[in-house]
């Protein structure tokens, strides 16, 4: 796994609670200079709280924060100086009731930047976010997507060393989302800005980030690159969160040079793993890795099961097909296949998946 050379932000044993509710529970995280880090996790997991603490908006109940190697004091003027090297784009863009220009310029003015330089920088950034004609518009009259771009411009114009983004595209239409994502990745490339982005959209994390951390219940359940997280979740909770819909309990019957056979009720699944025999495990298969067919002849996949369709649910271009092959399995197939295979309840099919697509997780290492 990529190990950052020197860290720009590091939190150690961070705990925080609001009243009775514990939000963060002894969290450790180190972010490297220039790294783009995505923080994924369900709502209420503590993503926003972590970002707020990193932005020095809040003082954690316990734990330390290091910025560029120095420990940040819990109060005092130094916090403002450090905060001015970071910028945080909040989830709901809070646009000041000023003109677009003044909204974008305010951070620079607060830093005592010279008037001419402010004008140059603001013009440049407005052009970058595609709002060059909006300078004198009242910012409150903008649409949601435009407001989000103003909020982003307002932070980017400060050329921060660290940019914190809280759900930068939540509640935006697909076109605006694509624009914002493009901006984020181009800034990360051009300025080598360190970014920490909270998102519940896993594909966004996958697209934009060098490294992903899964925040579950106030703790980092797993960090790693996208492949690690999505293919090899470390425990059941992470697996469920990253969309491993098929998590099947079983026991390793045999391990034959890296190919394990997992007994599940009366059936057996083959998978690539170095898990020893007799271990209780979960076998995880992403629903999009399961192929449905009327015969098994054309496939070289090691796993194929005769199954019966129990439910078909079409969402957009894809259909989620639940089948029973001795154990319950969910497959994600295109609508065309549904029509071609005439998939409907009680239809008999074969479920086929490769041994390499099955991720084996030892039981009991969760939490």
């Amino acid at each position: 796994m990529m190990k950052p050379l020197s860290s720009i932000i590091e939190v150690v044993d961070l705990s925080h609670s609001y009243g009775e509710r514990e939000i963060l529970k002894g969290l450790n995280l180190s972010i490297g200079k220039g790294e783009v880090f995505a923080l994924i996790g369900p709502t209420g997991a503590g993503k926003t709280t972590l970002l707020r603490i990193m932005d020095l908006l809040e003082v954690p109940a316990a734990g330390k924060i290091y910025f560029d190697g120095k420990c940040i004091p819990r109060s005092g003027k130094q916090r403002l100086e450090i905060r001015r090297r970071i910028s945080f784009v909040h989830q709901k863009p809070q646009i000041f009731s000023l003109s677009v220009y003044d909204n974008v310029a305010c951070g620079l003015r607060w830093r005592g930047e010279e008037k001419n330089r402010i004008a140059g920088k603001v013009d440049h950034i407005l052009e970058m976010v595609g709002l060059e004609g909006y300078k004198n518009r009242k910012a409150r009259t903008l649409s949601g997507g435009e407001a989000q771009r103003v909020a982003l411009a307002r932070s980017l114009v400060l050329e921060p060393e660290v940019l914190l983004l809280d759900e930068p595209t939540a509640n935006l239409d697909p076109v605006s989302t694509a624009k914002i994502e493009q901006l984020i990745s181009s800034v990360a490339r051009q300025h080598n800005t360190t970014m920490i982005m909270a998102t519940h959209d896993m594909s966004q994390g996958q697209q934009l980030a060098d490294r992903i951390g899964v925040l579950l219940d106030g703790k980092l359940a797993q960090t790693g690159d996208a492949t690690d997280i999505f293919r090899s979740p470390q425990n059941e909770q992470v697996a469920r969160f990253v969309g491993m819909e098929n998590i099947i309990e079983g026991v390793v019957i045999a391990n034959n040079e890296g190919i394990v056979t997992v007994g599940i009720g009366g059936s057996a699944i083959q998978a690539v793993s170095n898990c020893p025999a007799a271990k209780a495990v979960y076998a995880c298969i992403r629903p999009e890795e399961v192929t449905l067919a009327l015969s098994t002849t054309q496939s070289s996949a090691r796993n194929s099961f005769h199954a019966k369709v129990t439910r078909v649910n079409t969402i957009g271009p894809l259909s989620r097909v639940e089948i029973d092959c001795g154990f319950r399995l969910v497959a994600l197939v295109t609508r065309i296949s549904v029509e071609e295979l005439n998939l409907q309840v009680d239809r008999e099919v074969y479920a086929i998946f490769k041994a390499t697509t099955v991720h084996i997780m030892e039981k009991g290492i969760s939490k």
Partner: protein
Amino acid sequence: MTELWQAFTKALELLVSLNPEVIEIAGRSLRISGTSCLLASLICIPLASLIHFHQFPGKRALINIIQTLFSVPTVLVGLFVFVLFSRAGPLGFFGILLTPTAMVIGQMILITPLLLGFIISALSGVSKEIVDTATSLGASGFQTIWLVLREARYAVLAAVIMGFGRAISEVGCALLVGGNMRGVTRVITTTISMETAKGDFELAIALGMILLFLALIINTILNRLQQR
């Protein structure tokens, strides 16, 4: 009804003819109440920000007291200033009783709670997220307060307009500490009070209308400012 109509025509007459005494009285009313409102605003805007942005024990009680003082009777404030500045009083050596200065001080005391209370509530109307956003963008404490004041500018202006309205319309304090001395401390409200006592309802009503007309002009100007 005929009395009202007569009063109305007389008021128009006094206005159109630019009656020197009426102009003088109205001018004094504007000057005194404008000054007291301006000075009170200069004190209350920072003070209200201070109260709003700081947590301290007794904050709720303080705001409660401020709101209670909204209903302080104007004569009571007049009495207080009178006692304070009367020759035997603790501040008697200033010798400002029965001068416009005393009236300004009285009106400032009168409208301070009103301004404080409504500016605090104007600031509370700005969301916590705005404060956080400003802080995140690197605003210092002072810069954040300035931004929040700007965000709340319409509500703050409304508070100032209300303070001015209370100042220019009160009679108890102006009469008690000013003494309604012709050419010195005579203002619209004290004149209305005097003319009513004399039975000259027409002039009293006419002056009342002039006061409202002045208020209308001022409000129109301030509203124009708001819409910009």
